[in-house]
C-alpha cells in the first residue's frame, strides 16, 4: 500500500497539470534555455518570460544585485515581443508534452487587449498569465496591479479578448492583497498567481549610489517566502478560484508550505538560477512526502492547514 505512487495531478482553470510545479515567469526564459539541464516534460507547466506587443529592450545595467538571501532585479521586462515569440519560440515548446502558459503585459490598456487577442488564436498556448504586477517598468505592470479599479478594468478587458484560461498575477506591493485578488476574480480571472517581487533597494556604501541603474528593483528568493506564504493564505480565503503560490521556493518543503496554505500549484523562480534541476528535486520531494505521510492524492494536502 505504501508503495503506490500518489497522484500529483492538479487542474488550474481547466489546464491539466501532471504535478503542481512550474517555473515562475522571467526566471526560465522561453523554456529552451533550461532544456539542456532538465526534462521539460516532467514539469506541471512551462511559464514563459513576460511578453509585450512590441519587443522590449529592458532597463539599463546594472540590472541585478544579490542581497541577503535574495536578489534584486530590474530587468525591465526585456522580451522578444508576442509575434516573434509565436514565430521563433513556440515551435520549440510545441514539441514538448507540457502545457505552455504565456505570461504577458501591456504598456496601455489597449496593448493588454491586443496581446490577449493575438494569443487567443494560438492552439499551443494552454493559458495565459496576466502580469499586472511588475515593479520595474514605468507604465503598465504595477500601476494596474495596485489599484483595484484599474485591475478590474484591465482584467475585464483581457477577459473580453481572450478565449483561454486566464491567470492573473498579483503584486505584493499593496496594503491588502485580498482586495486586488477579489477585484481580479470578479472581473473574470480563472486563477490567481501570487506573488510577484517586492520592491526593494540596495546601496553601494562606497559610491553611495544605488546598486541598480533603475534605483529600485524587485526582491525575490528565499528572503520573500514568509511574505508570499502569508499572502497566498490571505488570497485563498478571499477568492474561490485556484491560487498559484510563488515566492522563494528553494526546496520541496517550501513548496509544501504553499500547498498546505491552499495553493493548488506553485511556481519556482530564483531557485532555477541557483540549481537548474531544482524543480525536479521539488517534484520528487513532494512525491516522497506524500508517500511518507500516506497521502494518495495531492488534493488531500492542498489547503490542509491546521489553525
Amino acid at each position, binding site marked *: 500500500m505504501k508503495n503506490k505512487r500518489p497522484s500529483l495531478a492538479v487542474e488550474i482553470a481547466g489546464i491539466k497539470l501532471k504535478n503542481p510545479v512550474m517555473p515562475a515567469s522571467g526566471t526560465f526564459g522561453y523554456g529552451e*534555455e533550461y532544456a539542456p539541464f532538465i526534462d521539460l516534460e516532467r514539469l506541471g507547466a512551462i511559464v514563459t518570460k513576460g511578453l509585450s506587443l512590441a519587443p522590449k529592450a529592458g532597463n*539599463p545595467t546594472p540590472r*541585478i*544585485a544579490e542581497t541577503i538571501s535574495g536578489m534584486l532585479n530590474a530587468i525591465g521586462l526585456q522580451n522578444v515581443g508576442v509575434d516573434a515569440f509565436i514565430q521563433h519560440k513556440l515551435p520549440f515548446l510545441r514539441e514538448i508534452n507540457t502545457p505552455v502558459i504565456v505570461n504577458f503585459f501591456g504598456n496601455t490598456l489597449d496593448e493588454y487587449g491586443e496581446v490577449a487577442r493575438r494569443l487567443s488564436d494560438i492552439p499551443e498556448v494552454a493559458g495565459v498569465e496576466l502580469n499586472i504586477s511588475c515593479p520595474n517598468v514605468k507604465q503598465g505592470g504595477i500601476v494596474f496591479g495596485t489599484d483595484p479599479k484599474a485591475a478590474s478594468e484591465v482584467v475585464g478587458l483581457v477577459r473580453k479578448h481572450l478565449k483561454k484560461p486566464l491567470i492573473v498575477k498579483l503584486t505584493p506591493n499593496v496594503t491588502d492583497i485580498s482586495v486586488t485578488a477579489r477585484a481580479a476574480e470578479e472581473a473574470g480571472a480563472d486563477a490567481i498567481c501570487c506573488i510577484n517581487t517586492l520592491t526593494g533597494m540596495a546601496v553601494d556604501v*562606497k559610491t553611495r549610489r544605488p546598486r541598480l541603474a533603475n534605483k529600485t528593483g524587485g526582491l525575490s528568493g528565499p528572503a520573500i517566502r514568509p511574505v508570499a506564504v502569508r499572502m497566498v493564505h490571505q488570497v485563498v480565503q478571499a477568492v474561490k478560484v485556484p491560487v498559484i503560490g510563488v515566492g522563494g521556493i528553494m526546496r520541496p518543503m517550501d513548496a509544501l508550505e504553499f500547498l498546505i496554505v491552499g495553493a493548488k500549484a506553485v511556481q519556482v523562480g530564483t531557485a532555477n538560477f541557483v540549481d537548474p534541476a531544482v524543480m525536479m528535486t521539488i517534484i520528487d520531494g513532494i512525491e516522497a512526502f506524500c508517500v511518507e505521510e500516506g497521502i494518495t492524492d495531492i488534493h488531500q494536502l492542498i489547503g490542509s492547514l491546521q489553525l
Partner: protein
Amino acid sequence: MKNYKTVVLSNQEISTGYYRMRILAPGFGSKAKPGQFLMFRVQTSLPPLLRRPFGIFRTGFLPADCDGQAPKEFVEILYKVVGRGTDIMSNLQVGSKVEVLGPLGRGFDMGVPGEQKILVGGGIGLVPLYMLARELTRKSSVRLLMGGRTREDILAVTEFERLGVETYVSTDDGSLGEEGLVTQVLLRKLDKYPNASVYACGPMPMIEAVQEICAARGVPLQVSLEALMACGVGACLGCVVKGAGHSEASPRYLCSCKEGPVFRAEQLDWTKLGQEPGYCEGCKI
C-alpha cells in the same frame, strides 16, 4: 553544458589573494573551449544565494591510475578573493564537494592561422587567455602583454612561456617588468606587427584603452567582458551589455552569458561601457 557535482582536487593560494583551484571535470573538461566559463555554486546553504561566474583557466587529464582506469578530466580556475563568495571558496579543501554549471557562453574566435596574435591581460583577466594561447600557439605566433598594479597581480606568466608565448610584463608601480600601462607595450607591438589580431580581458578601463588603440589602427579585437550574472544560461537577462547601435531611444542589449562573454569589439557600444557594469565597490566594514 550541464550541472556537474564534483570534487576539489586542489586549491592553493598562488599569490597574495589569488587562488588556483583544480576540480574533477568528468565529461566536460575536454569539451570546454577557450573563453568559456562556468558558474560555481559556492555552497548549498545560504548565503551567498547565487552562483559565481569564473573563466576556465586550464583543462587537462590526470594521469591514468596504476589500476588502469581511463585518465580523468580536470578543470582549473584562477580566482581573486574579492567578497564573500570567493572568500568561502578559498577555504574549500581537497575532496570538498562542489557544483559547477558549464561550460557556458561563447568563446574566442581563433582567427586566421599563421597571423600574429597579441593577447592583452590585466590581473585576473589572464584567465581565459591561457586556454586561448594554448590553442593559438598550434598555428600562430602568440605574444602576451600582461599588466597589473603590482607584482602580486602578475600570475602564471611562466606557464604562458612554456607554451612558447613571448610574454611582456608591466606593472603600475614597476615592481615587476616595465613600469607603466600595458597599453604602452601594446602600441609598440602594433608598430611592429600592424596586421596582428588582438584579444583582451581585464579591468574595464584597460579594455577600453585597448579598444581605442585597436579602433584607431583598424586592428581586429575580441574582448572577454565581465558582467553581473544570476543564471549564466540566458534566462534572467541580468547580464546584458550595450550593443552597437544602442541609444536611449532604441536600446539594444546583448546577453553576456549567451552571446558573450567574448565579443568582437564592433559588436559593442563603447560609449560609457566602462561605467556600465557598476559593481558594488565592496566594503570590509
